[in-house]
């Protein structure tokens, strides 16, 4: 008897647990976008060292390029150019990059470290001269002090890469929309809310989902209607779906930077990927929604 009683009690408790966990989980799972939060226990010194290195020209072979050159931290984390200098693709934002499961337009890399090493060693991009860089940093009082405090082993290739990686990994910048998802209903405007509904209804959220609103799936441009570009020479290939976080501040768009305005690219996507012609109001609403994805920088 007692055994049965205990059993039912335990079962009830389990069911209750299930019930609550289902509620909390489905609240998030019901939405295509998962909110991001800053890492609460961040090593400020290491993060600042990473930022210093990120902005340092001495990391490049010609000494006038830094990571910052193509990823301007005050302008959405990209360079605002059609395609980056010496490269054939548009520079994506560095904000929240660690939430992407694939890096670069072709998505060849799925981890930050090999990608960072590639960028540093690429003769078209950074073309780093390690001997020079390590020597220059080792003679810099600010750096030697910071490296000593954080790493003990001082300035070295591994430590430089490690600091840069730490910076990239923790460059998580939530937006107003994350606040909305986490329960602050008034964080975004009514128009943006409507835009979000449209975004889900028309199927944009099929590809642009997850923590980074994209960045975790591959797709070609022209799923419903064949896309050949404004000049008719757009080479359609399967590319990584880009993250839509900070999309409002990272013009121009598409991998070749061929579209300038955000509204233009919204219409383009609707037409070729969804087979849909949006009204101007709908475009405005989606535009408002996308603007709420811009990171808040203190």
């Amino acid at each position, binding site marked *: 008897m007692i055994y049965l009683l205990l059993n039912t009690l335990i079962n009830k408790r389990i069911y209750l647990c299930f019930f609550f966990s289902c509620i909390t989980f489905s609240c998030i*799972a*019901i*939405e*295509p976008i*998962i909110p991001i939060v800053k890492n609460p226990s961040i090593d400020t010194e290491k993060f600042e060292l990473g930022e210093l290195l990120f902005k340092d020209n001495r990391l490049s072979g010609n000494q006038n390029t830094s990571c910052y050159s193509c990823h301007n931290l005050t302008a959405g984390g990209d360079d605002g150019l059609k395609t980056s200098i010496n490269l054939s693709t548009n520079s994506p934002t560095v904000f929240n990059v660690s939430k992407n*499961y694939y890096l670069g337009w072709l*998505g060849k890399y*799925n*981890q930050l470290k090999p990608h960072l090493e590639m960028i540093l060693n690429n003769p078209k991009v950074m073309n780093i001269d390690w001997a020079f860089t390590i020597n220059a940093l080792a003679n810099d009082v600010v750096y030697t002090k910071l490296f000593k405090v954080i790493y003990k082993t001082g300035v070295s290739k591994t430590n430089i890469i490690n600091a840069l990686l730490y910076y990239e990994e923790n460059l998580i910048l939530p937006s107003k929309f994350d606040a909305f998802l986490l329960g602050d209903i008034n964080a975004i405007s009514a128009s943006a809310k409507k835009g979000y509904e449209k975004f*889900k*209804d*028309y*199927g*944009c*959220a*099929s*590809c642009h*989902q*997850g*923590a980074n609103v994209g960045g*975790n*799936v*591959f*797709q*070609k441009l022209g*799923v*419903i209607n064949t896309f050949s570009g404004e000049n008719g020479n757009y080479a359609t290939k*399967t590319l990584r*779906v880009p993250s839509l976080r900070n999309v409002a501040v990272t013009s121009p768009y598409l991998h070749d930077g061929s579209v300038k305005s955000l509204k233009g690219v919204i219409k383009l996507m609707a037409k070729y*990927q*969804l*087979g*849909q012609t949006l009204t101007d109001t709908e475009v405005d609403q989606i535009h408002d929604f996308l603007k709420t994805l811009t990171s808040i920088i203190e």
Partner: protein
Amino acid sequence: MNRKKLILILIVLSSTLIISIYSTYKRYSNLQNTMDIQNTIFQLVKLKSADAVWNYELNSIHSDNFPHFDRVNKAANHYHKEMMLFLDISRNIKEPFDNFTTLLPTLSRQKKSRMNDYLSEVAIIRNSLKYLDTLLFSLNKEAENDKFILKFLADAQYQLSKSIALNQRINLKEPNSFNQCVHCTEQQIKTVNAINKHLKILNNQIVLSHQARDAFFNAEHSDLLTTLFDELSLIYVKTDAKHETIKSQILTFTLILVITLVTLFLLFYLLYRTIDEHRAAGITDPLTGLYNRKKLIENLPMFMASHVKYGQKFSLLFIDLDGFKGVNDTYGHDIGDKLLQKLSTRLTNSVRKQDSIYRIGGDEFVVVVQGINNADEAKNVAENLLTKCNRKYELEGNKCIVTLSIGISLFPEHAVTPDDLLKCADEAMYYSKNHGKDRVTVWNKKHN
């Protein structure tokens, strides 16, 4: 002689044993470490579970209103990490095993790219479904009174349900489809065409997605994981068996070696003991344990040489018992022997440390008094012996009295050869005996 042969055999045996243990050990150290194989198996189990999680996440993509590709990508990354660890750990395992490990990254890469294909298809299906749903919903609202368009919409709705069922791999019946609009405006025909186009695309995509999904669950990949497991288990069992055999071999060899060495040691000890006994028997007197005449003759030249070297003198005390024959006759030989033993104990206790005592005849003893300057010193020792030894002997209730007659000769004053020295002492002793016994006489030319 037999014993010596045995020792030789034992030495050869133990050296061959040592060599064989060493060679076995060498063989052993070349063997694969079983811990490595065990760790590889554990890592493979982790890899398999990561693979299962990956499969599960891909299967559960349809369980949410919106598919979350983050989760399946995370599982894929986790699998990749475990695979790299596995490859790292299994690096040392030789045999045909490395053929499989080279195949693993290729198949895994293939699986990942197939996952991406599938995810792309799923995204397109999802956006088509969402789009059609929104479109049909709004058209239904608009065309409330239009019979023809409503009929078309109903058919389109049915087609959509069919597609949704097909997405779950459920085949529904195919009715006469009504996919055209006869009395429609141009605008309506445009919409109808768009819907038809979307439905067609949706159907194609669903077929494609099924193909991609089947490709993702590649039997070759899962078979490879199973084969790896079987191979590893086999290698482990084989290596472990080898280890056990060699371990027991070493143990046996060591045991035999230890036994042989102990036997060898015992034999050596026994041999030493026997030799010692033989030697001791030759130079000592069995009754009293004192040195015998042979030893005295052996020792005298050495004493002479050493005393000459250091410019010192030594003296020979020739002791003869007075009345020993009487004791033997009165009490018997047993008592006589006991008397001799008691006497030798007394003698041993009375002389100085550096002096040695010899029993050279039945009742004749010689004491060598070393390191003296003149005959008087020897005489003192002799007189001390007299007083000590003349006390009564209590032997089984009988009280016996024996006295000593002592003759002293001095080296190198009296003689310089062992025989002469002994002769002088003997003569001096006879002088004592003839002049009243129980006295000490130092040799003199007159005694001759």
